[in-house]
């Protein structure tokens, strides 16, 4: 059957992984053409690291980058939240840029298109 593989990764599994483990796993799967769905997403710092490593992996032939879909981070932390709070990730979808395309993004609704392989 022709199609695009989706890997849905639970929060439990993500919680057991280090940041680098998560990022390497995402990049390997996305480079292989898989779309990865993370139940609890990545932190902003992990997301920046993912972009950095993606840039190193771009080969200008087969892999031109990633498309990331997620809702905005929750805003407005209190003083004590700033001191002790830990940002909670939200659902995140990551795919190869040539397969996953954002059509529309709003605060609470994301519309994306998944293309089948050429």
């Amino acid at each position, binding site marked *: 059957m022709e199609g695009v593989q989706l890997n849905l990764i639970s929060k439990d599994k993500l919680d057991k992984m280090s940041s680098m483990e998560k990022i390497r796993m995402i990049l390997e799967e996305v480079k292989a053409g898989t779309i990865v769905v993370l139940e609890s997403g990545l*932190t*902003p*710092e992990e*997301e*920046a690291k993912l*972009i*950095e490593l*993606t*840039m*190193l992996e*771009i080969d*200008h032939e087969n892999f*031109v*980058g*990633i*498309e*990331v*879909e*997620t809702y*905005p*981070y929750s*805003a*407005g*932390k209190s003083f004590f939240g*700033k*001191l002790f709070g830990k*940002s909670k990730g939200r659902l995140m979808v990551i795919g190869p*840029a040539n397969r996953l395309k*954002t059509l*529309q*993004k*709003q*605060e609470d609704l994301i519309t994306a298109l998944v293309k089948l392989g050429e």
Partner: protein
Amino acid sequence: MGLIAKIRKKFGFLFKWFFKKDRMRIGIYGPPNAGKTTLANRILRDWTGDIIGSASEIPHETRRARLREGVRIEVDGKTLTLDIVDTPGLATKIDFHDFLKFGMSEDEAKRRAKEATEGVIEAIKWLDDLDGVLLVMDSTEDPFTQVNVTIVGNIEARNLPLLIVANKIDLPNASPARIKAAFPQHPVVPVSALKGLNMDNLYKAIAERFG
């Protein structure tokens, strides 16, 4: 992350509040073609008389971060000294085919794409050495892009003061209100860096936010 780095990150905003610097290092961030270099040039032209680099309609024109130190801005009798870092546009994908549309040869386009990937990495690295950020968005575009969400998330995680610049208000379909609605937790200043519109309000906001 080491313990000292964690403490620095968590409590950095307290140190910054108690020990305000007399000189702030401000990064100009945003997606490609938002007008970052045009804004940096406008600020420099207004206060120093020169420019930081060339701007172009071809994406990823700025592929190395450029630092200009000691830019003195005067607002309502108050003087503020800024070190301005004009950063390359952030992106999650860079496809050399996009540059071919602008008449480049394949070799030229590939070279530009490679340099652009290095520029994105450099822009991210700079985030750790800044005291504040001017995030430039194109008012004619949808503000809810992943790049904007990622930049805002990283600036909030680092507790850096942020000012969003809603650029290109001279264009007929510009909507700074859409940017304000998308990021209500941060101040937004509508400007046209190209035409120099509303720059006085931007300088006031810079003095308030970073002064």
